[in-house]
């Protein structure tokens, strides 16, 4: 046991870069800023180690060398100005010495100018929304770990609680600016490998940026306690080569245009129900539960809900505009008209709610435009 600890200490000391993989240290990350931060962290760590050795070494040496049993007598004096000045000046110099490189890194970290791509990141209870500004591409990113794994009915997957349905896709070697805000409470968008951990605050827009050096999948989590499902809103970033990113973005733009055209056409009930079920499972089921049974009193049941069944306009209004003073958010800007129409149609025809109602995307678009 003792030799194992010793080996670990030696291997930690021998190589700083190895420390990142064993999980004992912060990651070096994949951006210039993250490796700067790692370098600062290690520099300051070693400064602390040296100070600790000197201070505790001197203390333990004095305790041992001048112990009572050897007849040591305490010196009684009131002040010693030159020693006091010395032990005040040395920490000042050390602190200033550490502040110089840290200031340079901090300034670089907050300089989000000259970005080639702007991404708006919005925190919501409990998912992230990404919007590629000026590109007409936007989507929400929901945790894709099944609830059965969380409740223990199924064995946990490799990326348990750290997997999403739609990751944020970013190009490598391009400076990407993040504009970060929230729709409800304070969240925090945190990806250790990108060295970004920024609060998203309702009514404020925080800025941050990355320039990723290596393609890969980088995972993170919400880092600000934001409610019951705080642990269930992970962040996944796919960093891809520039050409691959351009291709992906063009594809998504085209899909968004297709979707916009879908608003005008007449949808069949089956299509809407099918689409609505997937929207329901990713967005609504965390509160209203998988079978629409809800979790009263905070989250009312949707199955066999009299008011919902009797009044389609009331139902649609709740989804589009939310319920003020309650947990139900407005989905008018989070979901598109097709998704809203689909999920309303689905909930009106699932779990015994046999209304037979079909809400068309065009009607939703009209309601939102009002």
């Amino acid at each position, binding site marked *: 046991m003792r030799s194992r600890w010793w080996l670990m200490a030696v291997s930690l000391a021998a190589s700083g870069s190895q420390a990142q993989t064993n999980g004992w240290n912060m990651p070096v990350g994949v951006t210039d800023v993250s490796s700067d931060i790692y370098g600062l962290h290690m520099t300051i760590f070693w400064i602390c180690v040296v100070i600790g050795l000197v201070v505790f070494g001197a203390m333990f040496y004095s305790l041992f060398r001048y112990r009572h049993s050897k007849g040591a007598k305490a010196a009684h004096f*009131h*002040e010693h*100005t030159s020693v*006091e*000045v010395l032990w*005040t*000046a040395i920490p000042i110099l050390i602190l*200033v010495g550490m*502040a*110089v*490189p840290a*200031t*340079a890194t901090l*300034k670089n970290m907050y300089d989000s100018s000259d970005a080639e791509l702007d991404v708006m990141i919005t925190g919501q209870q409990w998912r992230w929304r990404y919007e590629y500004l000026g590109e007409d591409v936007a989507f929400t990113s929901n945790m894709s770990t099944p609830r059965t794994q969380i409740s223990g009915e199924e064995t946990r997957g490799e990326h348990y609680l750290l997997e999403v349905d739609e990751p944020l896709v970013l190009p490598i070697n391009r400076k990407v600016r993040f504009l970060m805000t929230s729709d409800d409470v304070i969240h925090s968008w945190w990806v250790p490998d990108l060295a970004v951990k920024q609060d998203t605050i309702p009514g404020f827009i925080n800025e941050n940026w990355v320039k990723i050096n290596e393609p890969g999948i980088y995972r993170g989590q919400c880092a600000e306690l934001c409610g019951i499902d705080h642990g269930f809103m992970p962040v996944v970033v796919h960093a891809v080569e520039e050409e691959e990113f351009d291709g992906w973005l063009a594809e998504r733009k085209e899909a968004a245009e297709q979707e916009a055209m879908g608003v005008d056409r007449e949808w069949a009930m089956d299509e809407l129900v099918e689409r609505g079920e997937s929207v329901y499972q990713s967005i609504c089921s965390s509160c209203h539960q998988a079978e629409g049974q809800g979790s009263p009193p905070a989250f009312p049941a949707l199955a066999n809900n009299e008011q919902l069944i009797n009044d389609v306009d009331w139902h649609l209004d709740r989804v589009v505009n939310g319920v003020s003073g309650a947990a139900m958010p407005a989905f008018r800007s989070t979901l598109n008209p097709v998704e809203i129409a689909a999920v309303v149609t689905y909930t009106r025809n699932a779990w015994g709610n046999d209304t037979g109602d079909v809400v068309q995307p065009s009607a939703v678009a009209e309601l939102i435009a009002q």
Partner: protein
Amino acid sequence: MWSVVKSVLAALLGVQSNQKREEDFSSGRPAAYFVTGVVITLLFVLMLVFLAMFAAR
């Protein structure tokens, strides 16, 4: 004058000998210490600003 500056610098550092402290309290006008204190604090702030600008390049 030099004695006042020295006392203010000692206060900034937080270290002063008891003998000097008693001297300061028995002679000199308080206003001189206030004014010198404000001026030296401003100089200290400016020094930090320049240091930060230098560090950030």
